[in-house]
């Protein structure tokens, strides 16, 4: 029976999401409790799976009992096990933290909200866990479609932003599917391990190269890599708070995971780095992404919008670090996926707490929030320090690996971009802290007469836990690297590179 534990990660959220969408028509009050239980079970089973991977190595789970390549199989190694834990943690914390926000934002349909929430998480977990390139597409669409619905429910511009996200996201997913079709026509297989075994044996006719480019462009669209990032800021700024703080930390990071998985485990490093010879180009694009993201973030006047542009820059960190092509850079990229998800969650939750009390996130209205909401702002500062990369927080360590990877590859422009973007981040967050800490609280700005006070406990406790995790992950960064990140990368590269 223990061999079925991996299945629980997907099956429990899926089944419970269906029960929740039934319960939405019978008793709305059951929905939250059911969703919470499902996320807890998924979180515990993700940790159990991680333990088994560390002890026994790679787990292969055969769906419906058919052997690959005929059936669909899951392939769980260190890399996806840690991403599974990350998704479960972020979704669980956010579920607890946004309970009252969600009840306010979706007053007459919280049941359907929780059903879509669980389906979104199921989709992301399925993307991470699967070992089949077509199955990945289906789950990509599950996560995307529920994401469009969750983002589009906000007021004002949300629907337009979500619709343009839908257009770009669908083109991206379709291009990925097209690339997978090129792979299928050349190899006749859909299983990742099977394709990886076939690819070196077939003669090169340009089909594989085109499929590689198509998949990569599709994923770049989905992850908002710089020239294709236009959907992200609007979609995240205008979205409801309870869904923005779920989707912003996870979507881009999972897409970067998919890129790493496809490049390392399907096409393999020899082909992707040596034969295609596009790694320098992509690192240069990443440099532009980092600089442009930071500059655009500087121009924003609203907290959530500024954070959205910081995400664009952070995507540049991870893509660039990975395409440096050396172990330090890849370690930095993988570690930064984990850190960045937690930092983004922390900052978006803090922004959500501020918005729930101040009613807006325009910088002008944030005067004196430090005195009124001290604990929320402590968490905000912790997240900000981590984004900047100040030592006790986890952001420092991944940035350290990224910079040393850049030095090792001799790509000094990337190193310079990282440092410049850190300096810009210092200025960005100092501006917010200056307004919030040094300027006195101005009651004229809060004309609705409501007194601004500390966020409610159910919002504050998860927020402080997230901030604490940032520091804990910083202390244990070395353990994380030796036990999880190193085995994940060396399994893919066979110690080469």
């Amino acid at each position: 029976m223990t061999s079925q534990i991996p299945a629980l990660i997907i099956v429990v959220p899926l089944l419970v999401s269906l029960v929740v969408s039934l319960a939405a028509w019978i008793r709305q009050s059951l929905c939250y409790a059911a969703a919470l239980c499902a996320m807890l079970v998924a979180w515990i089973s993700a940790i159990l799976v991680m333990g088994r991977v560390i002890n026994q190595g790679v787990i292969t789970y055969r769906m419906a009992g058919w052997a690959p390549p005929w059936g669909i199989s899951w392939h769980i190694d260190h890399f996806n096990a840690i991403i599974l834990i990350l998704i479960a943690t972020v979704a669980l914390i956010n579920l607890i933290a946004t309970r009252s926000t969600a009840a306010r934002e979706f007053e007459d349909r919280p049941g359907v909200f929780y059903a879509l929430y669980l389906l979104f998480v199921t989709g992301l977990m399925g993307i991470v866990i699967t070992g089949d390139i077509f199955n990945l597409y289906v789950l990509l669409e599950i996560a995307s479609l529920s994401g469009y619905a969750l983002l589009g429910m906000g007021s004002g511009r949300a629907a337009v932003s979500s619709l343009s996200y839908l257009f770009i996201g669908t083109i991206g997913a379709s291009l990925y599917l097209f690339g997978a079709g090129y792979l299928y026509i050349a190899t006749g297989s859909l299983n990742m391990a099977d394709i990886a075994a076939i690819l070196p044996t077939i003669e090169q006719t340009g089909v594989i190269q085109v499929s590689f480019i198509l998949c990569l462009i599709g994923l770049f669209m989905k992850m908002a890599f710089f020239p294709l990032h236009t959907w992200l800021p609007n979609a995240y700024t205008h979205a409801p708070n309870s869904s923005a703080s779920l989707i912003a930390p996870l979507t881009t990071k999972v897409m970067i995971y998919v890129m790493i998985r496809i490049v390392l485990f399907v096409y393999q490093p020899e082909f992707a780095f040596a034969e295609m010879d596009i790694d320098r180009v992509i690192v240069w694009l990443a440099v532009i992404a980092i600089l442009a993201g930071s500059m655009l973030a500087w121009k924003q006047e609203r907290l959530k919008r500024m954070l959205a542009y910081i995400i664009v820059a952070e995507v540049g960190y991870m893509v660039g670090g990975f395409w440096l092509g050396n172990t330090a850079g890849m370690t930095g990229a993988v570690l930064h996926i984990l850190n960045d998800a937690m930092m983004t969650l922390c900052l978006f939750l803090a922004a959500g707490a501020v918005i729930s009390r101040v009613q807006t996130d325009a910088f002008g209205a944030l005067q004196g929030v430090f005195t009124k909401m001290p604990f929320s702002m402590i968490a905000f500062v912790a997240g900000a320090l981590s984004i900047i990369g100040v030592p006790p927080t986890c952001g420092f360590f991944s940035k350290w690996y990224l910079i040393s990877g850049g030095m090792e590859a001799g790509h000094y422009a990337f190193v310079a971009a990282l440092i410049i973007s850190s300096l810009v981040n210092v200025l960005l967050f100092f501006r917010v802290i200056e307004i919030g800490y040094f300027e006195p609280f101005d009651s004229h700005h809060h004309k609705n007469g409501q007194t601004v006070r500390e966020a409610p406990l159910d919002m504050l406790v998860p927020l402080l836990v997230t901030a604490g995790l940032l520091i804990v992950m910083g202390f244990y960064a070395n353990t994380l690297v030796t036990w999880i990140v190193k085995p994940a990368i060396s399994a893919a590269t066979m110690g080469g590179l």
Partner: protein
Amino acid sequence: MKSIALTSVALLCAVLIYSTMGFPAWGDSDSPASTHVSDYYIENAVNDTAVPNLVTAVLADYRGYDTLFETTVVLIAGLACFFLLRRFKPRQPQHRLYRHIDTGITLIIEQGGKEPTDSEEFVRIDSRWVPYDLVIQQASCLVIPFLQLFALYVIAHGHHSPGGGFQGGVIFGATIILMAIANDLRSAARRVSERLGALMASAGVLIYAGIGALCILLGGSFLDYSALSKLFAFTPVMARSHGILGVEIGVAVAVSAVMIWIYYNLASAGRHEEGL
């Protein structure tokens, strides 16, 4: 703008057309796509699952996990349309139109006026578009039962002929949509209410996922229908065949309900009062 778009798209097409030169010829039965994995399905599917329609066998068994999420995608579309569009508060100010059946005279009831709700002589009509065509109404009444019968046949006969849960479900949903178009939204909603549709949509996917989870409880992998042979007196091969039928029924229930649900929300712009 348009010329830039046209040139860039044309360039992209040219590159892609050039890349097709590396493909095996169209219709070549020795290409990798037609030999590597697919031969196994063609040669063994009947032995493994007792289903002559290879597409059904692969869809619901070998790649049943994909199909589970395919059904879930449909459910998500239904949930999303409801989530984005549904407005529970009725429109203000409200006036309703009633038609006197025999004479065709239209009655406008302003707010507060008494409405002839249970009258035999008056029928409520939509404000923007007033379909009143005896031929269409009677013809649709005539064909809908046969269409529904055909939908059930397509669902049940998916093992042997083209079709299956998805196609049958869509046809079944389309019959209710036809009813809503030929008469009006309210008369369709009297037969399949929004609540019933929503419950059926979730329940259909739950049937599918539940059969899969039952297989885990019986000691197999997720969706491994051969484990069902422990519960019923089937051979494992027949258990797979019957498992596929059960799954197809779940798909059909979910898909038909979601199609109706999406139509209700789109056609009435979320108010469920007046339709197309």
